[in-house]
């Protein structure tokens, strides 16, 4: 093989490698250029329980991802879980009295935070604290209540059942949110 053909093959090989890397970056990992350029604002919310939620879990509104959880910690004064989240600047329309709920993707899927719309004129901005929250649904707790039958069981179970029912309805009505 002469020199030129050899060099061309090597060039093609290196090109194929670079192309493959680019493919991994954009097609497989879904990296988009300039994603980090757009600003974000931070919002805090307090939950009774964040069972299953992780740092980097997504924040969604109407099924569209608008941000991610940046930290989860305990607030020692309130005895609640303090969740800090980063929301994209483009999502600057959320009313200040919106509710943050912890949802589950699919019945066994991962937890994420969803917003249900409030009616306030003011919108959430950097440093806002969300007042209305709903904790994650812990199946074990529910089952426990059924099995053990606590004292004021009637009301409690009815309330929990209502929550479960709502959640299930939403799950059923909503398209699988993992599908982009």
């Amino acid at each position, binding site marked *: 093989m002469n*020199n030129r053909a*050899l*060099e061309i*093959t*090597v060039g093609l*090989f*290196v090109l*194929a*490698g*670079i192309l*493959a*890397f680019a*493919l*991994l*970056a954009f*097609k*497989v*990992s*879904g*990296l988009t250029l300039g994603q980090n350029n757009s600003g974000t604002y931070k919002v805090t919310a307090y939950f009774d329980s964040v069972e299953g939620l992780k740092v980097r879990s997504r924040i969604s509104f109407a099924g569209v991802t608008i941000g991610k959880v940046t930290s989860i910690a305990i607030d020692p004064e309130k005895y609640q879980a303090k969740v800090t989240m980063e929301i994209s600047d483009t999502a600057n329309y959320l009313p200040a009295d919106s509710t943050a709920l912890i949802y589950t993707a*699919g019945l*066994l899927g991962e937890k994420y935070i969803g917003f249900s719309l409030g009616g306030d004129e003011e919108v959430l901005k950097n440093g806002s604290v969300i007042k209305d929250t709903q904790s994650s649904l812990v199946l074990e707790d529910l089952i426990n209540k059924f099995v053990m039958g606590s004292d004021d069981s009637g009301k409690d179970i009815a309330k929990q059942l209502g929550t479960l029912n709502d959640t299930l309805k939403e799950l059923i009505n909503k398209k*699988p949110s*993992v*599908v*982009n």
Partner: protein
Amino acid sequence: MQAQKKVGVLDRIQLLGRSAIDTIASLGDAAIFLVLSLIGRRGPGKHFRLLIKQIYFVGVLSLPIIMVSGLFIGMIMALQGYNILISYASSEAVGQVVALSLLRELGPVVTGLLFAGRAGSALTAEIGNMKASEQLSGLETIGVDPLKYVIAPRLLAGFISMPLLSTIFVVVGIWGGAMVAVDWLGVFDGSYWGNMQSSVRFGYDVLNGFIKGLVFAFVATWIAVYQGYSCEATSVGISKATTKTVVYGSLAILGLDFILTALMFGEI
């Protein structure tokens, strides 16, 4: 009949000590060899042609085996993943199973093993042959440093080729997985790629896999070239060195893979 000498405890301990010293000495030898061949190269442009030629032999000629293995491994992953996931009614997740296992583990590791087997053994045998036919000492006689002229281009070619090969392996594997899962088994196209994109992170999975490929390239090529350069200059010596290249190379890759995985993905 010759009376057999009794081997005492002290003799055994001495033997152990000697083998330990030998091992450490050869490790140091290999390190000095690596430094000498890579550092102090004068004018990389001078040997650029040699490097291109070696990339052709080490990289381009390894492409067929890498691509075919990648294709089949991706297809197997998709088939196995689908069969297991379907019982949890989450067959859409097959995309992320294929992509993550290829990116994080199978891509770099299998490429490394194949590379040690195909390119590594060829390098060892070639350099060993040069040594046996006294070409290396011939080069020294005419004032050319064999480390710079023979070894350095081969080392660099390995470092450059293997990460590229491993990246190509992953891409072909994911494509093979898509072929099986989407075209044959009927997983929805959008969920295959969408699930993959939402679970694969560029800075974490893709880059860490690439770093693994670099490390394995470094180790596999280094072992291959050193074994060739330090082998006994006989046909038996060359065959021994070639075997050692494959065995040591594969073991080093698997061992390092565990350490790298523990460092990179150990705590999530």
